[in-house]
């Protein structure tokens, strides 16, 4: 197992946010964490990345408790793409280069610059390498953040709503690229998502959170309309369109 989440609970100001969350992830898996707003999806990602310390339970990354790792070691193992946007006056190249921080002692070396160039090329961003990020759109910034996580060369990618600011073309491109990277390089990825159809299309595993608990977890082929209705409180149907399962809400 590349990631083993065992009985993780998190309490914020005596309000329980996560309760006994358990799941495991193998190399090559891309897990979509699904659930309504405020159910604890982002909190779960932060607990995995040790940004927050669980009040109970453990997060094992390749068998080691993440809280026992040095912060630099965590950053070399886990790449985290946050939801927040940024607007510092840096070029795209330098903003992505920041992802090499866990490897840089004093100054970036040739290898670091080469890795950034390669990541920008993978994301078709090399033409904007010298643009300042405070002049970029939300979608472009999201790609910068994903590129930065990639250059950390992590084993696990955590993506908090990675496609929320992306147009349709960029959503497909980015998620296809993430899926390719995860499967080809034996990594794992955990994404929080609101778009069920995107999750069904690109993830190979799902985890429904309801009231801070795991409602169900499994392969995306097992997602049913009943599950979605129970978690979101909205009747839906799942149709197959061109071989892809597609969720259609029934209520107006």
């Amino acid at each position, binding site marked *: 197992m590349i990631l083993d989440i065992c009985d993780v609970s998190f309490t914020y100001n005596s309000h329980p946010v996560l309760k006994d969350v358990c799941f495991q992830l193998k190399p090559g898996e891309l897990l979509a964490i699904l659930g309504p707003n405020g159910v604890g999806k982002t909190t779960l990602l*932060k607990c995995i*990345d040790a*940004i927050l310390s669980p009040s109970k339970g453990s997060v094992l990354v390749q068998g080691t408790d993440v809280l026992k790792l*040095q*912060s*630099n*070691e*965590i*950053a*070399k193992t*886990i*790449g*985290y*793409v*946050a939801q*927040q*946007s*940024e*607007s*510092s*006056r*840096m*070029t795209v*190249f*330098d*903003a992505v280069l*920041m*992802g090499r*921080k*866990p490897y*840089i002692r*004093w*100054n970036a070396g*040739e290898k670091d*610059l*080469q*890795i*950034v*160039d*390669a*990541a*920008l*090329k*993978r994301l078709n961003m*090399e033409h904007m*390498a*010298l643009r300042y990020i*405070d002049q970029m759109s939300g979608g472009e910034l999201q790609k910068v*953040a994903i590129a*930065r*996580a*990639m*250059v*950390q*060369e*992590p084993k696990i990618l*955590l993506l908090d709503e990675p496609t929320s600011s992306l147009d349709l073309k960029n959503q497909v491109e980015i998620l296809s690229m993430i899926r390719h*990277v995860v499967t080809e*390089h034996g*990594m794992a990825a955990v994404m929080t998502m609101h778009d069920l159809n995107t999750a069904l299309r690109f993830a190979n595993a799902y985890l429904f959170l309801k009231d801070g608990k795991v409602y169900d977890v499994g392969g995306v082929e097992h997602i049913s309309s009943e599950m979605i209705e129970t978690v979101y409180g909205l009747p839906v149907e799942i149709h197959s369109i061109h071989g892809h399962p597609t969720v259609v809400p029934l209520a107006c």
Partner: protein
Amino acid sequence: MHLEDGHIPAEYTRYIGRKLAILTILALLLIGALLVAISLGAAHVSIPDVVKSLLGMSVSKRTDIIIWQIRLPQALTAMVAGSGLAIAGAVMQSILRNPLGSPFTLGISHAAAFGAAFSVMLLGSGVMGSSQAGSISITNPYLTTGAAFICSLLATGMIIAVSRLRGATPETMILTGVALGALFTAGTMFLQFFADDVQLAAMVFWTFGDTARASWNELGILTGVTTLASLYFMANVWNYNAIDAGDETARGLGVRVDSMRIAGMLVTSLVTAVIIAYLGIIGFVGLVVPHMVRRILGGDHRFLLPATILLGALLLLVSDTVARLILAPHILPVSVLTAFMGAPLFMYLIIRGYKK
């Protein structure tokens, strides 16, 4: 993940080269400004004579005394104070994620002013004066300086204590700083209300930042503290870049954000407190210089911090020289000039478009 098939783009190499060229130009301008600053004054000394004297080739005893005893320490003090205040401002703006970050934002300057007023009024340290203002005598400058320094550190300690209690967020630090600034200002006004004419004059005089107050001894202390602080800041450029991208992103990159914020604030406060304690309050350098550099070089701290050191030194050196000459034979405290220059400059930067 295999990402080693890239190469270093030529445009990026040229882009970095341009930044290094700007740093070199700033360094050359600073050296030029230093020579000009030393040559100008009531007694004019030619630049070749300045160079000769600085290289140890004595021109005349009189020239050597003017250069080594009066102008060089003052010019170097201006450079060191300018660079220290500017880099402290740049780091404060980064760790507080606030474009108004400066010693004033956190109430450090106000605390120092209160300390000086307290010393003058209650510790009887008398009138602290400038070596270039002959009519004002110095009775106990070290007591005034010490009190200002202690009060600056007290303000810093209080901000850190509240940050420990409520979390080291920029909001907590800034709001605590604003509250402390108001508290220390009220304390200073209270003391001023009960002060006699001489004490009041001394209190007000102390707040005029003046580079002529420092001798070689004080310059040594200022240089030591500023150099060590700058080395610490330069060692953390990647951490400041990461914090600029947001706390969560920084944590994801392995930065211990809260510790970095508290340590950064402690060091910026220390360097600011030492400068203010010895020279008085010199406003706007810490606020304006980082913004000027960001417009020229961007927000990458690898270049922002060295350029801020150089431009801060250059700006205060030029301001100090102009302040010495503009109303000759009267000598204007440099803080008056920096405030006159800084406010319109800051407004210009706002109108041209603010970029953090």
